[in-house]
């Protein structure tokens, strides 16, 4: 192995490869710059741009609203993290109920189907209204009546239905031969699901799952309609007092900053899983 040194021909080829790669990189950079410059020019040369700039991109207003939004965004993050935790659990349980085959679990399957059908049909904003104003009115013992609690509950109920369907599609995408080979080893249906099918299913649905979670992060803003003073409500408050919409842009930036790391994390995770499982397989 050590006595091999690349031939002149190979060195030439490597040079060509490097040149081709450089060319690709150059094209990619140039095209990207071009597109963004053109887009920027279109926006800034539009007739209403000075007005839009004054009302939406005012630096002093951005600075002034920033601290309040910064404080309020933690409420969104808290809501998101709590909701995400419960959504993952509930959604998986619903998905498992829907793929179960035991006759004893029939009622559970029926409930799961009705639940996903009904909940997915209702706009999330309505669920937030119904939960935040309806539930406390029931005066149930031992349950809090804070808008934060019920808005979060509404998000959990709504998103569990979506995420359950994502999990279910993942479970059903695993080839039937995997069921067969696990059951041939003597595993029960439940064990097969737990140890063989779900681990594969979850990997496959990471991208759509991320989609739903990015969506969830943004939908924490719906809590504003229930009277939760989170980031969007804070921004709205500022705009109402100052007649300047810049805080909305600031909130938008916050949401972007929140979702980008999640997206990169998921990309990295999926890439790592692919590398590990497909190593050598072609």
């Amino acid at each position, binding site marked *: *192995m050590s006595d*091999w040194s690349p031939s002149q*021909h190979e060195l030439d*080829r490597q040079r060509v*490869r490097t040149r081709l790669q450089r060319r690709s990189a150059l094209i990619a950079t140039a095209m990207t710059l071009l597109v963004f410059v053109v887009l920027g020019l279109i926006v800034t040369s539009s007739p209403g741009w000075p007005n839009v700039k004054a009302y939406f991109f005012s630096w002093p207003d951005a600075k002034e609203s920033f601290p309040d939004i910064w404080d309020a965004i933690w409420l969104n993050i808290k809501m998101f993290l709590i909701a995400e935790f419960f959504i993952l659990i509930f959604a998986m349980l619903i998905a498992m109920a829907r793929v179960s085959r035991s006759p004893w679990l029939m009622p559970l399957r029926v409930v799961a189907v009705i639940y996903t059908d009904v909940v997915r049909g209702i706009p999330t904003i309505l669920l937030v209204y119904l939960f935040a104003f309806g539930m406390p009115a029931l005066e149930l013992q031992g349950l809090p009546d804070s808008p934060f609690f019920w808005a979060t509950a509404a998000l959990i109920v709504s998103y569990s239905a979506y995420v359950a369907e994502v999990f279910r599609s993942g479970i059903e995408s695993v080839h039937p031969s995997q069921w067969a080979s696990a059951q041939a080893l003597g595993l029960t249906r439940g064990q097969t699901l737990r140890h063989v099918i779900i681990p594969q299913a979850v990997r496959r649905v990471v991208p759509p799952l991320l989609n739903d979670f990015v969506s969830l992060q943004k939908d924490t803003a719906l809590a504003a309609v229930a009277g939760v003073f989170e980031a969007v409500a804070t921004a709205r408050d500022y705009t109402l007092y100052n007649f300047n919409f810049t805080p909305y842009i600031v909130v938008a930036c916050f949401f972007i900053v929140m979702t980008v790391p999640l997206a990169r994390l998921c990309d990295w995770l999926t890439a790592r899983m692919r590398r590990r499982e497909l190593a050598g397989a072609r």
Partner: protein
Amino acid sequence: MSALLTVEGLRKSYGEKVVLDDVSLSVDQHDVICLIGSSGSGKSTLLRCLNLLEDIDDGIITFDGQEISDPRVDARALRSRIGMVFQAYNLFPHLTVLENCTLAPRKVHGVRRPEAEERARELLARFGLADQAAKHPDQLSGGQQQRAALVRALCTNPTLLLLDEITAALDPELVGEVLEIVRAEASAGMTMVLATHEMAFARDVATSVCFLHEGRILEQGPPSQIFTDPREERTRQFLARVL
């Protein structure tokens, strides 16, 4: 007549692991070259390099007089002239057998649907798959799937056919029906390079047999010589194990 395909000093490594080391090979029109050797000897990698599915680390590959190992070569144009069949069939499960067979002729070669279907049906019929044309691959037996994969490769009228252990995943009783097709193609003059574990078949159809060992072609010759009087001790050992 100059060779259809030549390989000279081919080297391929994955990181530290050298998979092909100084491999040279010449394939004339109508040749049937059988690559034999134990698993991991580099047979599949060699076939994949010929089809530009792998970037090589050194050496020159020419096809029809043109160097194809040049990075500026249009790999798609080359592949449209080379057919390849894999061990795991790799039929597209969402398409019917007929659609599998007409995809490349229609999308790559610009053949119109009626003509592409006519040719595919004719080939399917010749290989006993006329009744399976409208089915999806998963409804077929392994042997039928692999025959369909062969038909798919032949539908584009390739100049060269690469077969990568196409019977390795099949039941012994199904191997025959697949090899029958290969045999028919060979006697019809198709140029082929194939990796195989079927020694009797190799002895039968090969114009030349290459024994690969640890990434090198240790020995090459007509089947009559390789199988009865191998020059190398390694070849002798390998044949003793598989025959």
